[in-house]
């Protein structure tokens, strides 16, 4: 299967270039079809690579430059199941988005398809690469296509501001990654991750390695929307058309998290081995802060895309905390979370587009009760929400179970409670919005929610129903992600391989087979243990309570309300004001966060 590795990247990129070359010749529909065919081909190959990587890592040395005596001359793609799965998720979402845009973006320029294909190819390359500079190339291509896509509705001033905030903060993050790569090259004389890891592994980390690690991880955390680097994400999502949000939230943010794990286990695990707890504490702390602040901000939104965007931030925090445990079991949990969350959140964003098309607004108070005539969309909204809260045994349930078990092994059992609260509050906000829109429940006005500019709806001749089918496919796949037979055993096995630094190195640099070809992976169904089921139901209870509070908080006794406003009001106002939408503020937060991370590691590692 080695030959197939470049295809998920190259096929969409060639298609993008062909679309530009033939822009004046081919009719729009033919161009759209070329784009969809390319994305489908890429998805098919990514799935094939995923299947082939189950047994052992699949490598492709570009130009045929195999390493000599452990020295990598060229660039490699290294597909293991987690990387290939990430690529397949990105390609699959790219395909769904292009199909969705067949009608949704019909009136817009064909540039949309070009940029979506470039973004898809870049994401696949990012997931598959085994070379740190090649990673940076895809990181940048992902960035430039996504910045332009975020500004796609540029006629309105809001999108431009959201896209600018996105581009400026992420460019600073990319620069940090590049500085970290330069430091690593200065020390190791290598760009291949396995080779960097081998050289760094000779001795414990000194300050150069620590600063390089801090720079690379911080830069990736900007892309992954981790507090306090997360501010751009909500602005970018509010600005982007719904299908673009689905890609940003469903795959791009997660890729930032993915590469933190990749670079840690391939390059830094050995030199930082003695300091694993210092790395763990900082990243778990940031992850928890992100999960909780994201959930709080999610609760305060009434514009649906902003609401979902903050829920993505919250989930990204859970993912980072799961990776930070530096334990294969939690890593398997994160992998399942990325898969289920990517599909569900992608589907929910696509559903936002349906709501915009059918009801002309995506502000939950402005479309109050108007969704009664779209019961099917309401059902999909509910299903997506239940999947994100992890109703046993669906959606993110398996992920939460694995994360919980991994956390308990390292004395971080309380992380499960944080995760339940965060995902419960986010799901509560989504239930509240759904109940207002599709059932007309609760108060028509809500002074707790932030008013935001509304979005300009697409032309009226777009029908919501076919769009709803595409959204429904994503949501149903996301719900089913937990219950695919054998997925638990497979992701755990894959995560153990992902975290096996020396076997990865031997496979890349010396061509050893990495992975146990004889390993018997059963197709057993997911076992639901009582603790995890209670945990999932607890999160659901939190969600229900949150939603009820959101809908009917005016009916609470005034004494309780005023006491709550006195104690919770000031901190909530401070957090809300910090999300100012001003890019200078965001850069200040970014600098402060980078300083804090680097300083803590410089002092403790």
């Amino acid at each position: 299967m080695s030959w197939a590795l470049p295809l998920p990247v190259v096929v969409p990129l060639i298609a993008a270039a062909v679309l530009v070359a033939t822009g004046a010749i081919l009719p729009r529909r033919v161009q759209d079809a070329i784009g969809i065919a390319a994305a489908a081909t890429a998805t098919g190959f990514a799935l094939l690579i995923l299947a082939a990587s189950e047994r052992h890592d699949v490598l492709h040395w570009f130009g045929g430059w195999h390493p000599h005596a452990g020295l990598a001359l060229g660039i490699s793609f290294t597909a293991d199941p987690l990387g290939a799965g990430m690529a397949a998720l990105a390609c699959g979402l790219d395909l769904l988005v292009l199909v969705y845009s067949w009608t949704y973006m019909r009136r817009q320029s064909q540039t949309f398809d070009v940029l979506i294909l470039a973004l898809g190819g870049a994401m696949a390359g990012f997931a598959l690469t085994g070379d740190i500079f090649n990673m940076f190339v895809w990181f940048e291509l992902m960035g430039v296509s996504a910045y332009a896509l975020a500004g796609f509705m540029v006629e309105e001033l809001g999108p431009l501001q959201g896209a600018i905030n996105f581009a400026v903060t992420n460019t600073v993050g990319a620069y940090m990654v590049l500085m970290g790569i330069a430091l690593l090259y200065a020390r190791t004389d290598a760009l291949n991750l396995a080779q960097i890891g081998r050289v760094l592994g000779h001795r414990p980390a000194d300050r150069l390695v620590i600063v390089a690690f801090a720079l690379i991880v911080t830069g990736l955390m900007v892309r992954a929307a981790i507090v306090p680097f997360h501010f751009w994400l909500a602005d970018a999502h509010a600005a982007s058309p719904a299908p673009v949000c689905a890609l940003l939230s469903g795959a791009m943010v997660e890729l930032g998290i993915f590469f933190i794990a990749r670079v840690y286990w391939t390059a830094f695990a050995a030199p930082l081995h003695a300091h694993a707890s210092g790395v763990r504490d900082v990243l778990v702390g940031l992850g928890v802060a992100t999960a909780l602040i994201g959930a709080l901000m999610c609760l305060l939104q009434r514009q649906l895309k902003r609401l979902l965007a903050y829920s993505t931030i919250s989930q990204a925090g859970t993912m980072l905390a799961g990776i930070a445990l530096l334990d294969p079991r939690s890593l398997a949990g994160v992998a399942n979370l990325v898969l289920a969350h990517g599909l569900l959140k992608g589907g929910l964003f696509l559903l936002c587009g349906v709501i915009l098309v059918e009801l002309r607004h995506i502000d939950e108070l402005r479309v109050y009760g108007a969704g009664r005539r779209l019961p099917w969309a309401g059902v999909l909204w509910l299903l997506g929400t239940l999947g994100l809260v992890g109703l046993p045994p669906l959606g993110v349930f398996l992920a939460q179970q694995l994360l919980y078990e991994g956390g308990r092994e390292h004395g971080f059992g309380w992380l499960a409670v944080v995760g339940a609260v965060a995902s419960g509050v986010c799901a509560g906000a989504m239930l509240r919005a759904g109940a207002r829109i599709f059932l007309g429940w609760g108060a028509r006005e809500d002074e707790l929610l932030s008013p935001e500019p509304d979005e300009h709806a697409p032309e009226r001749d777009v029908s919501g129903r076919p769009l709803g089918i595409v959204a429904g496919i994503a949501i149903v796949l996301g719900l089913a992600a937990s219950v695919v037979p054998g997925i638990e055993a497979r992701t755990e096995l894959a995560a153990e391989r992902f975290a096996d630094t020396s076997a990865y190195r031997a496979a890349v640099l010396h061509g050893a087979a990495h992975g146990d070809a004889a390993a018997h992976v059963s197709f057993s169904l997911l076992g639901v243990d009582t603790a995890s089921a209670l945990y999932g139901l607890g999160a659901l209870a939190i969600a229900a309570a949150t939603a009820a509070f959101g809908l009917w908080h005016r009916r609470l006794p005034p004494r309780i309300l005023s006491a709550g406003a006195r104690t919770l009001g000031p901190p909530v106002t401070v957090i809300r004001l910090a999300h100012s939408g001003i890019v200078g503020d965001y850069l200040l937060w970014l600098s402060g966060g980078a300083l804090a991370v680097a300083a803590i590691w410089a002092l403790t590692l």
Partner: protein
Amino acid sequence: MSSRQRLRAWIAAPVLALFAAILGWGFARAPAFGDFHGAYGDLLNRIAVPQRHTSNVVTAIVFDYRGFDTMGEEFILFASVVGVVLLLRAVREPATGQDDPVASDAIRLFGIIMVAVILVFGLWLAAFGLVTPGGGFQGGVAIAGGIVLVFLASGYRAWRTFGRERLLDPFEGLGAASYAAVGLAALIAGAPFLHNLLGLGVAGTLRSGGSMTLLNWAVAVEVAAANLVLYTEFLESYLVPHLPRR
């Protein structure tokens, strides 16, 4: 400067100073300036000419050993230009159609001569990229720079002969696509992606480098077209609406 900006600057100064201090603390362990002894660079210097028959080792790295990075970088340029065009076109006032031709015959004559000189220079840079310093990226920028002189020396109307999207878009797309297509051809032939399929030729001559020659020209076309698209967009969105009405 508003009070908010002033406050931000006061907070930013110590934060950035401390961050710079930490960076300096880490960078101090990097090899001293001019004192880097990397085996990778030495090795490539030794093997590039015998293995690739290209006397410009940088080109061998850019188009062969690390040719896949270059493909990604080419697409970064491609996507950036597509994005810039998208953003500029949407907010642009319609062109007035006014021209502001250059009046001085001396400037026109000298400018047109320079167009030819710079075009030849750009083509030479690109063509000899595998032999002497230069290559498709540099040559493409020079070619685009030569063509933009048409505007400076003659005026907007003459420039419009070249600066049209219908003319440039195919070149931009084909430049990017053909780089990837050369890589794909190797894959279809059963070799790894971007493997050098064509004969390597004689080192130090124009007939050296094999597939690298094709990649080099693909990049030259892509870079020249992408730069011209950018110039066109900037001229259209900035210069044209501001031309004096007569």
